[in-house]
Every structure is written in C-alpha cells, then in structure tokens.
C-alpha cells in the first residue's frame, strides 16, 4: 500500500507473565519510527506504567481498556487508515484479528499494516501452518489440532505418549504442558482447551532432549529477508523458551546446521509473506549419547519447525539487545512501506538495515522467576512460562556472560556458588527442570558426577556442562591455590565477582578488589556495534570484559549515572524502568550526560539511544564501582550517581557507593537509612510528633512475641529493606507468629524484622518531590482496599474520594514535615492509614511507610496530573529549585478527572500459588481506567483488569465470619441484580437466615458432588467472592482450592470485600464506555 497517514498502534496491556516490558520497548520504538516516517501515530494501551503512553511518544495517546468495542470507538473517532498489530504482543495481535473478524477494519477502511492478516492466520493456526510447511518441503512434527478432550485422547493414542499440548492463540504457553501419562493428558488438555480463546489445542509429538534453537528474522514488502540473530537454549525442548536459559549466538551448531535452519527460516517467512519481524523456533537433533534418534544417513541433522510468532516477541527484544539491531523500529518502518535497504542502520549510521549482525561476544539470558515470593508455588518448568522477567549479560566467553547474568538476577545475593541447603547431604540432587536447575547442575559437577551422565539425564548439551565444569575447576583452584595474577585473571575472565573470589579464597571482597587494582587488573569496556568492529560505529552501548583495549573512553562534560532496576519481578516492575528512562532524559535536558546501567533486555532504558552511554552490566557494587572508575578516567572525578529511580535494586547500592566514597545526588544514604531503619525512623517521627502504628524492630522470636503482646494482635510482620512486601503478613495470634517469624527472618537476610500494630483503616498514598526547601505533592491516591492489602495489589483512585479537607491538609502537612525533616531530595513516597475521626472530630492519620525514592505510582500520577515528576526530581537533585522550574510547593491542584489504577495478576500461570490478597505483593502489572466520574473510571479499570462483572452473573460466596457483616449489603446487591447465588455451608446458613435463596455447595472436596471446585470448573458460577481469616499461608489456608480453581478457570475471584464492592457497584454499567485521549482528560 502507499504510505499511511494515521496509524493505530495497539499496546499489550498490563504486564503479565509471558508479556512483559518488552512490548513497551517495542511499542515505543515503533511510535518513534512511525513519527520519523512523517506518519501520525495513535496509541492505545491500558497500561499507564509505560513510556509508550507518555504524551510525547505517540501523537495521540489513549489509556483505555483493550477491548474490541473500545478500540472501535477510538477508530471511529480518529479514523486511522492503518493498523499496526504486530507490536503489542499476543494481545495486540489477537485484538487485530478480532477487529478484522468483526468487520470493523473494513467498516472504517482501516488497512492492516505490515504482516497481512492471512499470514498471521497461517502462522497461528497449526493446521494451516503445517500445510504450509509441507508445501515448501519443511519437516512437520507429527501433531493434531483438537477441539475436545476426546479428540486429544485419540490424537495422543495415535502419536504415542509423551505428547506436548499447546493451546492455540495464547501467550507464554498458558494452559499447555507435556503429558507423560493418560491422567496428565486429561488434566492438561482440559486446562489447555479452557485457555485457548478458540478452544483448540495442538497435541504434538514430544521431542524431549532435542536442542531448541530460535531465529529472529525480518522480511520487507519487496521480499528481502535477513536473519537478525539466532539463539540456542541451554534447556532442551520441553522448557518454554521464556523459561529457558538462552545463549546468543548458537554455540553448538556448525555452519552447516546454522545455515540449514537459517535457510528454512527465511523460506518460511517468505512463504508466509511476513512484512516485519518474525520469530521461528526449531528443534534440532542432539548428540546421540544425549538422546538417541533414528534414521541417521550422514545427511544434515534432522530438525523440526516448532513454532512461528508472526510478530515482535520477547525473543525479538532479546535479539535486539543482544545484537544492537532495533527489530521493532525496523518492523514499524517496513509496515510504513520502507524496504530494508532504505532504512539506515542506526548503529553504524553508514550501513543499512539490510544486513545480518555479526556478534563478537556471547550473550546469556536467564529468566527471573517469582519463587522467592511464592516459595510454595510449583517450581517445575515446562511448556507454560512462569518467569516474570529476565536478565541478560554480555561477555567474550559463555562463562563470563553466565556468571554476570547470575549476578544480575538479584535473587537474594545468590551467585553461581549458591547451593540449596537440602543438597548438602542429599544422595542425589534433583536435575529436573526447575528454577534452580542451573545451580543443581553446578552442584553435581562439584560432586564429580560425569558430564555425559548429566547430559543423558537432562538433555543439556555437554558443551554447556563442560563449560560449567570449567567454572568449577576455577572454583577449586581458588579454594586451593595462592591467589596470584594468572588465577585471578582466569577467574575474572570467567565472570567471577570479587565477592565470589573472596568467598572461595578466604578474603574480603574489598581485599580482592585491592589486590586486583594493585595488579592493574581492571575491566575494559567493549562496544556492541552489530558488526564485530568491521565498521566504525558510534553506539554508546558497552559491556565489560577483562581484555586489552578499552573502547569506553570517558567523554568530556558532566556525567551522572542512572542505576536501573534490573529484571522485572513482582514488586519491582516496569514502573521503575519508566522512572529510570525519564531520569536519563531529564539529565540530558539539564545539560548533563546520562549514563545508564541496567541488566534487563526487555526495557526502554536499555535501548541504546535512551541515554548518552549504556552499560549492560549487573547492578551490583562491583560492576557499578568499576563503571564509575572507568568514567572517572585519568582525572579521577567519577560521575555522581542517582539511586532513587531503580527501585530497591538501586537504593540498596546507596550504602556501598557511599562507603566507597562515590557521590550520590538526591536523598543521601543517611536519609535512606532513616526511612528503612525502624528505630531511627521511630525516633525521627517522634521528634516531628507524627504518629505511626506502635511497633518495634526485632531479631528473635522471643522479642517478636513480646512486642506483639505489648501492642496487641493483629500485627503486621515484615522484614526491612525489601520491596513488594516480600514475606509480609498480618498475624492474628502468637501461634501464627511462631510459624511466620522464621519465614520472615530468611527473607530479611540478617536485617531486623518489623512488627507493627495492624490498623484496619483507609490507606492513602502520596508521592512528593522536594528540592530541599519546598515540597510539591502532585497528587494523593486513595486505595480501594483497606490497609493490609499491599499497595501494589490495591486499586487506587486519584483524586481521593473519601478524604475530608482536614485529613487532606493533615496528610500534606505530615508529608512536608517528613520529607524536609529527612532531607530527602527528589522523590519520596509515603503511605498513610486514615482511621475514622475520633469523638472530637480530629482526623486520625498514621504513617505506615516512607520510601525516599521513586515509587510504583510515579508513572500513574505523572500521567494523570501532567506533573513531570521525574523531570522535576532530577533537576532538583541537580540543584535547580522547584521554583526555578516553575512549580510551587504544596498540593498540586486536583485535575478534573478520575483515574483508577488496578492491579493485574498472572495467577493462572503459577500453579499452587494462593491468590489471596494480603500484605505481600502478588500482582505482576497494572492498568488504568480514566474518565470524568469515579464510577466510569472504576468500570474501565475493572474491564481492563478482567474483573468486570456481567449483570446477573452467578456468584459463589464463601465468607469468613469476620467479614460476613460487611458482606451483607453486597449479597443483597447481588440478589437484587438477579445473580444466582451459590454458597459454602456457613455462608449458606447466613443467607438462609436472611431469606436469600442460594444453592449450598460443599467445601469438602472428598465428599459429595458438586462441590465448590466443581461449580467453578464446570462454569456454573462466573465469579467468586471468598474471604478468609489470615491463619495459614499456602495450600493450608482456608479456601485455597476455591481460589486456585477460579484462577485456573480465569474467572474473577475477590478476596477483599472492598474490591468486590467496587466490582458489584459497577456491575450495571457495562455499556461500552466513552473514550478520550489522555490529554483531553487532563486538560478538562
């Protein structure tokens, strides 16, 4: 087609497992690329925590629910002539297909840009795809699409167990799995059919132990095809690629193998007619001593095409960062009609996008799993992805990149040396695929289990195991030999940190560092330039290694280092990348050079043109100090650092950097310590006369029990210095305290545990900006759920709806006092609990928590108030007053809009994890509903977070005694709205007493049918309201099976009366909402 004038881009919505920050990166690049082409971009996404929804990224920004009716309204309003569907993940692609199927695109004359719909269908529909493969002579894995359980069983019978079950049109392999037994087949097929929007699964031959290899390829409208990157999984077939450790480029493929698969990939995208990016997964025959296979004729190795993603994917974000080739940007330009040779290579600036990157380094990606938070979850890895995020590391060897990647994970302080305590005396260590398999492999190698035995057992190619073995042999040398130059250099080249070396060679990390510097052993920084140095490139994108030549020569001018937030995990999501990116831009606006350090390949912050210089490095003390020393150069003047935008990752670096004599701008290490150290904080608030719930910091069980008794149960127990409320719980009595303190003590890693009186009031949250003299409060947010539900899992409203003027004023006054008193410069987040006014009408406001850093709510508040919070904070940190930036102190005038932020969970992907909302955060992402009234905004937030209730929906009620009185009005409302009610025994008795008809279903799973789980699984009920008393955690907690069944069935399950109230209130208003651009709402 000719170049479009207005293009609609669909984002991917909330961050969930399988669809994370990579689509913010892709969408942001796409918007920029489309703008460069002189095309107007219209963006729709429900996720406010993204750079792409910033007002200046696209030409028109809609933060609205991602549903077909909503998008139709936007199309009717904006009349785009093109739709770019391939940059918003599976969500964006599915919506585009639905819009086309519903005839909306045709009705409004909207053309799909880039890859045609027909190609998408042929790639996503297994039957069509297999036909295509057969047509072009590519090998097809024996498989069968099935739409019923019976069909699945018949297919499995024919193919032979084990089989893989892959649901059609889902992301991250949701609902799929590998069935080894007929029982597993039935379970997985049932959940897979439920997960597929078209109720279709593919039953496929299982190639366990075969190599898994991916190719990222591009094709333009003229038919030019290139390969961007190939990647090899350390984990063989059977583990979802998003859950696999991945290496780029492939390591164990000969040129013949590489080219055979590359040719197949290009042939496939050519036949599909892809116009843009595409990801193709292959399975390649392994060594016969690993897994035997038949039919070797001395010909090329057999392979199969496993899957094609006709869009920008998580793998393409990884490939972009691994190579420097901006896949999303090029894909967007192709969609606008450009050919590859017409698109300049932004890295070299002298070649074009029509080439294939040559790597002169090794890239290792390791997924980041949430099992530090969900210790009781099922940790087995299979075809359904479980990781929330990932890290990437670059070095000149696999060993170096692997060690650095592990250091980047921030899974506690776990290095490659970590071993599970249970392995110490274990006869055999479990090597099945779990989140700890990498460490288990190291452990068995340390115990001299032969490589070939491990390879046969796991299917991991001996190449990887031998490389791990090399790391083990250096460990042994460090344990036994004197720490001399050659040994130290070998260890550094393999990515050992000074801390690991110290641990093995019995030195302090600082002593290792000193020895290293005495020997003149400093890392050099090499450039990621797409071309292995063949062309002179100007990309300021670097990784460290221990070699001869340093390419990151310090540049003149004042620099400041922004410490990023590392991998996306529960509690530290994309919001912190948003803040880091804005920090870099603000520094540039302030005339400084912005230097970014981060380890997350999915993000905008690690796009090479976000900052003046990007270091792709672990965010640990050693890596950051090395970078600061490098940037200091010969002058010795290291740049200052900013720690307050990268979440707890960066904040935790404040103290070590301060001790190392490095300058930090913004809140000082002391201010951070005041906020985090319970005793200091208590004294600080006392001095200001600001109340907080009574409590204390404890280190032993005795202290804990004594404190709780003094202040009275219920109490809130949590470790200090952790983010996302990890290991935080409301404890009702001494019995629970005994069990829970042990768990909290582990998460606290030697730091004290905080015990506070639990006040069940209204929770209010404030973000403030301070220049040292004035405090600006852009907005106050009120939580919909009462205190006790983690703020990250709460729905929040801006502006607050229930606070009176006195309460508001008091909150502002406290905020000012705290921020100024603490000496916090830049951003501070404070959480309060507001109790009903006492008898004399005096407001009762308590401080729950102060964080002298950017919080999760920064993007949300920035967007709805239009106060550029990070910008103001950074310039204040650089010494510019708020006044000189045109802002006064105090509460920023409230906007004439209402915005509701709602959390989004990934619970269907995490088996055995309790979905009950509590003080420990569980959500993976967020959405925003914005409108002119509270009800309308709430309705949008509920729709966007999949919690909206259809009028008359049948509801299952299972209520704890404590919450029954409060639930009464809701039960009446449901009854009045014509909802059929189902109830467990106790709740049923209450309803009976009230004269409300309800069907009683038993909670006892071993007794009569139907029980509670049956009515959820068979679709009798469409929603669950379940409250329980916080007595136990995990599967022992009351109602666990109800909540899990609801999660598997993907139906709303409310565990807080407050959330349920909000959803029931808006039940009648399910008409398609009005839509407007974000700037229209803000300008009202």
């Amino acid at each position, binding site marked *: 087609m000719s170049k479009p004038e207005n293009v609609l881009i669909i984002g991917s919505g909330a961050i969930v497992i399988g669809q994370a920050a990579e689509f913010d990166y892709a969408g942001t690049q796409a918007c920029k690329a489309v703008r460069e082409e002189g095309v107007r971009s219209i963006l729709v996404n429900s996720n406010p925590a993204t750079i792409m929804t910033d007002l200046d990224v696209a030409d028109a920004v809609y933060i609205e629910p991602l549903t077909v009716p909503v998008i139709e309204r936007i199309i009717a309003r904006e009349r785009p002539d093109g739709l770019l569907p391939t940059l918003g993940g599976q969500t964006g692609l599915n919506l585009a297909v639905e819009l086309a199927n519903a005839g909306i695109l045709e009705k409004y004359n909207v053309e799909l840009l880039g890859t045609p719909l027909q190609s998408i269908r042929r790639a996503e529909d297994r039957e069509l795809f297999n036909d295509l493969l057969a047509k072009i002579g590519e090998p097809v894995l024996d498989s069968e699409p099935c739409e019923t359980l019976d069909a699945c069983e018949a297919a499995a019978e024919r193919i032979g167990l084990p089989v893989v079950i892959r649901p059609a049109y889902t992301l991250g392999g949701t609902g799929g799995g590998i069935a080894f037994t007929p029982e597993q087949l039935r379970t997985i097929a049932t959940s897979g059919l439920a997960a597929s929007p078209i109720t279709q699964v593919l039953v496929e031959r299982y190639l366990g132990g075969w190599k898994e290899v991916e190719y990222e390829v591009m094709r333009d409208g003229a038919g030019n095809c290139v390969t961007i990157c190939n990647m090899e999984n350390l984990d063989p077939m059977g583990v979802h690629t998003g859950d696999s450790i991945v290496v780029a480029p492939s390591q164990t493929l000969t040129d013949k193998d590489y*080219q055979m698969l590359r040719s*197949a990939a290009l042939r496939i995208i050519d036949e599909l007619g892809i116009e843009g990016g595409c990801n193709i997964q292959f399975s390649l025959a392994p060594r016969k001593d690993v897994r035997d296979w038949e039919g070797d004729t001395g010909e090329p190795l057999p392979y199969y095409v496993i899957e094609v993603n006709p869009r920008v994917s998580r793998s393409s974000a990884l490939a972009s960062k691994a190579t420097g080739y901006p896949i999303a940007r090029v894909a967007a330009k192709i969609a606008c009609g450009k050919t590859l040779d017409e698109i300049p290579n932004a890295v070299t600036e002298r070649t074009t996008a029509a*080439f294939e990157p040559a790597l002169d380094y090794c890239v290792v990606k390791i997924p980041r799993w949430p099992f530090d938070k969900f210790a009781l979850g099922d940790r087995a890895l299979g075809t359904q992805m479980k990781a929330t995020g990932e890290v990437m590391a670059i070095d000149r060897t696999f060993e170096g990149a692997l060690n650095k990647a592990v250091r980047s994970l921030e899974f506690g302080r776990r290095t490659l040396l970590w071993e599970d305590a249970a392995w110490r005396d274990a006869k055999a260590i479990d090597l099945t695929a779990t989140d700890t398999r990498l460490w288990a492999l190291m452990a068995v190698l340390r115990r001299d289990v032969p490589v070939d035995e491990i390879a046969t057992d796991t299917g991991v190619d001996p190449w990887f195991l031998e490389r791990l073995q090399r790391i083990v042999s250096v460990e042994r040398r460090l344990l036994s030999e004197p720490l001399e130059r050659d040994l130290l250099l070998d260890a550094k080249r393999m990515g050992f940190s000074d801390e690991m070396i110290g641990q093995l060679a019995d030195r302090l990390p600082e002593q290792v560092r000193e020895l290293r510097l005495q020997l003149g052993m400093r890392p050099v920084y090499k450039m990621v330039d797409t071309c292995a140095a*063949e062309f002179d490139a100007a990309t300021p994108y670097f990784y460290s290694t221990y070699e001869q030549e340093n390419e990151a020569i310090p540049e003149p001018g004042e620099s400041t280092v922004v410490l990023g937030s590392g991998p996306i995990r529960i509690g530290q999501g994309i919001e912190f990348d948003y803040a880091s990116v804005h920090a870099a831009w603000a520094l540039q606006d302030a005339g400084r050079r912005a230097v970014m350090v981060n380890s997350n390949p999915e993000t905008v912050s690690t796009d090479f043109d976000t900052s003046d210089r990007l270091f792709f490095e672990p965010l640990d003390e050693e890596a950051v100090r090395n970078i600061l020393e490098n940037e200091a150069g010969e002058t010795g003047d290291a740049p200052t650092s900013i720690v307050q935008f990268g979440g707890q990752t960066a904040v935790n670096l404040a103290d070590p950097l301060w001790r190392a004599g490095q300058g930090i701008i913004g809140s000082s290490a002391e201010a951070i310590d005041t906020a985090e150290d319970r005793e200091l904080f208590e004294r600080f608030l006392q001095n200001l006369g600001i109340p907080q719930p009574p409590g204390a910091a404890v280190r032993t069980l005795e202290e804990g029990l004594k404190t709780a008794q003094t202040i009275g149960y219920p109490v809130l127990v949590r470790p200090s210095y952790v983010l996302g409320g990890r290991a935080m719980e409301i404890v009702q009595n001494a019995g629970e305290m005994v069990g829970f303190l042990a768990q909290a003590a582990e998460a606290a890693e030697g730091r004290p545990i905080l015990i506070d009186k639990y006040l069940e009031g209204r929770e209010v949250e404030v973000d403030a900006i301070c220049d040292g003299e004035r405090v600006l409060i852009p907005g106050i947010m009120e939580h919909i759920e009462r205190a006790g539900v983690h703020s990250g899992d709460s729905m929040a409203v801006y502006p607050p709806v229930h606070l009176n003027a006195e309460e508001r004023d008091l909150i502002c006054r406290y905020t000012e006092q705290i921020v100024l008193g603490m000496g916090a410069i830049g951003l501070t987040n404070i959480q309060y609990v507001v109790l009903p006014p006492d008898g004399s009408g005096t407001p009762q406001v308590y401080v729950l928590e102060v964080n002298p850093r950017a919080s999760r709510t920064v993007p949300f508040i920035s967007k709805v108030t239009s106060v550029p919070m990070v910008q103001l904070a950074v310039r204040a940190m650089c010494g510019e007053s708020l006044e000189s930036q045109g802002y006064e102190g105090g509460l920023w005038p409230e906007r004439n809009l209402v915005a509701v932020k709602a959390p989004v969970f990934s619970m269907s992907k995490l088996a055995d994890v309790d979905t009950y909302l509590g003080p420990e955060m569980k959500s993976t992402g967020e959405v925003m509903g914005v409108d002119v009234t509270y009800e309308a905004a709430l309705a949008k937030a509920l729709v966007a977070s999949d919690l909206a209730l259809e009028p008359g929906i049948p509801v299952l009620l299972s209520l704890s005694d404590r919450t029954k009185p409060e639930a009464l009005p809701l039960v009446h409302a449901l009854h009045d709205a014509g909802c059929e009610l189902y109830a467990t025994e106790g709740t049923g008795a209450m309803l009976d007493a009230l004269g409300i008809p309800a069907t009683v279903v038993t909670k006892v799973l071993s007794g009569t049918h139907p029980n509670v789980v049956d009515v959820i699984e068979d679709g009798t009920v469409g929603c669950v309201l379940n409250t329980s008393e916080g007595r136990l955690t995990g599967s022992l907690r009351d109602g666990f099976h109800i909540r899990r069944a609801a999660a598997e069935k993907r139906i709303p399950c409310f565990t807080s009366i407050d959330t349920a109230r909000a959803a029931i209130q808006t039940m009648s208003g399910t008409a398609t909402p009005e839509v407007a651009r974000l700037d229209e709402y803000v300008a009202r």
Partner: protein
Amino acid sequence: MSDARLALADGSVFEGRAVGAPGHAGGEVVFNTSMTGYQEMLTDPSYAGQLLTLTYPMIGNYGVDAAVEESGQIQPRGLIVREVAPVASHPRAASDLATFLAERGVVAIDGIDTRAVTRRIRQHGVMLGVITTDPPEAALERVRALPDYDGIDWAAQVTTEEGYGWGSFARANDLRPAVEPRANKAVAGEGLGARRKVALIDGGVKRNIMRSLTARNCDITVLPIDATAEDVLALEPSGVLWSPGPGDPQVQNFQVEEARKLIGAVPLFGICLGHQVIARALGAGTFKLPFGHRGANHPVRDARTGTVTITSQNHGYAVDPEGLAASAEVSHVNLNDGTVEALTMRSEPVMTIQYHSEASPGPLDSMGMFDRFVELMATAEGTA
C-alpha cells in the same frame, strides 16, 4: 600466562597463548566476522599467505569434521582467536580444534583481544604480522623481514598440480554432498536436462563449488591455473568456471589473456578471483580494499531488481569498473560500500560474482547462481 604474541607491522604487540603447532607464522593479518564455519575458513585456499583473525571469540565449540573441509589442507599461515574452545560438542565432531591444529601443524594463538586487532586493521588497513613466542622486539623484527603480500602469485601456490576429475576424487575420498536449502533440492538435478561437462580453472577452489555443481548434474574437470584457453576448450566443456583464489588479481596477467579467449567461446562463470580476472579481461581494473570483505553478512543489491541478498564474502581486492567494456555491465553492487559485486555481458554467456555463492561458510541464499550458470549453459546449447 602469556607465552606467545602477535606482532603487527604498525608496531603493536598483542599478548596471548600459543596453541596448535609450535613455531612462528607470518603473513597478512585479516579478519573474518562469520560466527560459524571456522573449519571451512581454515581450509579455504583464499587465505593462503594470511594470518586469519576470527572475530567471534569462542572458536572450536562444535569440533572438527573432515567432511566439511573446503580443500585438502589448512590454508592460512596462522590462526588468531580469543579462545580456542577447550570443549567440542556436536553429533558430527570427530576431534577438537586444538588437536586438529596441532596435528595439521598450524600455528595459532589464543587469548588475544581479537576485537582490538580487528579495530586496528579496520582503522589502518590490513598489514603484515607474525605469531611467535619470541619477545616483542624480535617479533617485530620478524614482521619487518616478511615479504610484501601483494607481489606474490598466491594462486599459483594453491592450485592443483595436475588436472583431475572431481567425481572420482570425491568418491575416493568419501566426501559428503553439498548442504542446500530444502527448497533448492527440488530444483537441483531436476529439469536441467542432460549431464554437463564443466571445466574448472583452479586458482584456489573450494570444494562446495564442485559439490554444488555435482548436485546440478555437472561432471567437473579441475585444471591447474596455468591451463591455457586451448587446454580448456580441448575438453569440450558445456561451461567453464573460473574459481576463487588468493592474492592480487594484478599478478594474473597470463590468465587474464586466457580468459579473453574464452569469453564468447564458452559459457563462463567467474567467482571471486575468477570474477576479477574476467573483469580485467573485459577492460576493468582492480584495486586493494583497505581491509577487505570477509564475513557471512554482506548485503548485495541486484542493480536491476533492487533485491538485496545476504552473501558470504572473502576478498581483499575489488573490481574498478572504470574501463569496463560496453558489452558488459555491473549487475550487482555491495550495499555497504558500493563496490562491484557482479558482472554480466549483454550478449555473451558470461556471469561473474565477487561473493561466494557456494557459501561454506555463510548463507545459502545465492546457491541459485549455480542454477543460473546451468541455465546459461543450457541456453548456449540451445542457440549453438
């Protein structure tokens, strides 16, 4: 633990470890950016007289397999890498690279900051260098003592001594057939008519050229580089393939004259050095590139269709189209630097390419060039 070093003509010295065979090696230092195919490169005759730097840092990961060799011996004088992999793993691996280098008597050095070496060559152009265990001063002395690379007829050193038939050679040595994209399999051998006889002038040919032609029903007779046009035509071939090879095309005056006699007399396909020789025969000049094109990712644009193809390249010299006969035209150019990548003649059955359609290593996207050569021969038969 440095025990060896690489010394360059500009006086720079890089410290590393000796691997492979003991001894010293000197030559023109070049780099290749392919990430796979080290064994193919090590056996590519076009590296004669050179020290080959591989920019990919871990070399030897999948071991060695005699079946993928491109000639009967190791061609570069020495190998420069960041790491000779201590571990080899592949279903087809017969041995590991370190053992292979030692057995074949190849001097190699690892532990080298190959990216620094590459950047130096990119900035200052290819230069002479030496791999040695001598101390730095002595190493640099060795570099100064090296003869100039450009003046030597390297092709004469790597050509076959005597002519031979490829088919019987391949059978005798149990060589595996070419790996081609599945899509090409249908094409190759089908609809191409009778078996054809191809004469191949060996200036340093790679076996995959023979394998690719064999797959297309060609019987190949390989001739040494001093073969005359009369020798070639005496075979009565359907077509002549002028092979790739090492060195400066300016020293190939004899073959330029012979090529002139072949143009028009028989369908002619020149690859790399063959392309340069034929270009000279058509009046064009050649010049030395600052640091050559060596890699598997070079984009080439078809001047007529605008299509871009990713090609495998390995050449230090390029054709200067100034003076090219009006009967010939530049059909392909390099997208990066605009250099000539292919020539055709308007009315004679002549095609030449600067890049390597036989890949090995590199992308198989240009395998179709062999089909075009077959078509060229078929057309010539039709009109003859």
